[in-house]
């Protein structure tokens, strides 16, 4: 991508300068175009799976596995995340020590907000996920931060997801060089091979989506971020999107990044933008 001279020389030079100024460690390859990326991403899955309507991808591998879908629909009759959602609602309404609550930080009493996360925070110049926003709210009201994989954090995000069901994902990448660089870094992460197995996210969840991995189908990346956190039957508990990132990175033999690390927040930013327009439907049940 980095070329000398030619018509793109100016664009590449600007990318290099932007990268250097932001201290990213590597240059931005060119001006990012998230919407063109999203259209291409959607088009890829539509061509690979012409019989699967785009909106079905919010159900992960159940979009393509009829037998597993029927089992899952049975489970959804009495969803195992139900108590977690109720706990999250209670936590959301509980007053902090200063008498305020999460409702003072989030609009509409927390209903219908999930689809806008992650968002780019122009003040910090960083990607803000829902989990980071929750801890930011707590800090402003004198409360200690919650661990990202704590029961409380998972309950809060589960309830907010539940209270946002049906809203189309609507993540924005503003026309801000820092936001575009963050998006591009997330995109780069998704397509970069790493670890002993030399695999990228796109290998399993793009090129091999629908293929078997042991007894299960690999799910598609399209729709992944719409339904987290999820109740994992395998673990018997709630799991965040970043916990899944963490597990995937380990599985390919790379040292994983921390939950809510800059790397994972930017990966979530890219992935969620790719699912823009699909309905938020968290929390969900997964194997």
């Amino acid at each position, binding site marked *: 991508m980095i070329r000398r001279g030619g018509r793109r020389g100016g664009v590449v030079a600007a990318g290099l300068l932007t990268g250097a100024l932001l201290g990213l460690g590597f240059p931005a390859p060119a001006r990012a175009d998230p919407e063109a*990326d999203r259209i291409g*991403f959607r088009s*890829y899955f539509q061509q690979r799976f012409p019989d699967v309507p785009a909106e079905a991808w919010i159900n992960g591998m159940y979009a393509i596995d009829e037998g597993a879908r029927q089992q899952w629909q049975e489970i959804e009759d009495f969803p195992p995340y139900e108590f977690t959602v109720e706990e999250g609602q209670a936590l959301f309404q509980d007053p902090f020590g200063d008498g305020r609550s999460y409702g003072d930080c989030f609009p509409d009493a927390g209903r219908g907000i999930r689809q806008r996360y992650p968002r780019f925070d122009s003040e910090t110049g960083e990607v803000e996920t829902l989990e980071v926003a929750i801890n930011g709210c707590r800090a402003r009201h004198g409360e200690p931060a919650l661990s990202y994989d704590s029961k409380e954090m998972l309950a809060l995000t589960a309830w907010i997801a539940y209270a946002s069901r049906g809203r189309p994902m609507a993540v924005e990448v503003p026309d801000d060089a820092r936001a575009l660089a963050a998006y591009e870094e997330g*995109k780069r992460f998704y*397509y*970069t*091979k*790493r670890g002993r197995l030399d695999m990228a996210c796109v290998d399993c969840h793009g090129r091999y989506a629908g293929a078997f991995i042991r007894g299960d189908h690999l799910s598609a990346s399209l729709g992944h971020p719409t339904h987290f956190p999820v109740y994992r039957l395998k673990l018997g508990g709630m799991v965040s999107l970043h916990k899944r990132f963490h597990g995937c990175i380990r599985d390919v033999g790379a040292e994983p990044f921390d939950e809510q690390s800059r790397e994972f927040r930017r990966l979530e930013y890219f992935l969620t933008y790719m699912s823009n327009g699909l309905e938020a439907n968290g929390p969900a049940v997964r194997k």
Partner: protein
Amino acid sequence: MRDVVTSALVLAACLALPVARAADDSRTPAVEGVLEAVESLRAQAVTAGHEWLGTRSLLDEARAAAASGDAARALELAEQARRDCELALEQARREEEAWQGRVLR
């Protein structure tokens, strides 16, 4: 990143000889020098965002072997860790541009 990878490869080349020599040298300073050099290589893999799983534990085991006086075992483990780091850094260098060929469209 390219500078990091280049310097890592130079360091790796420099390391190869001392590892071989140090195997015959049970003096702790020689082993310690090799371990420090491999740790430096690992740090470069971390900086590049490409550290492989298991490299840290290899180095931890190498340090433990050195501490117990088993220089040969320490150097054997350090050599495994060095190879991991080299491959991880080579992967990072290759991926600087290779990822763009995988973009879904």
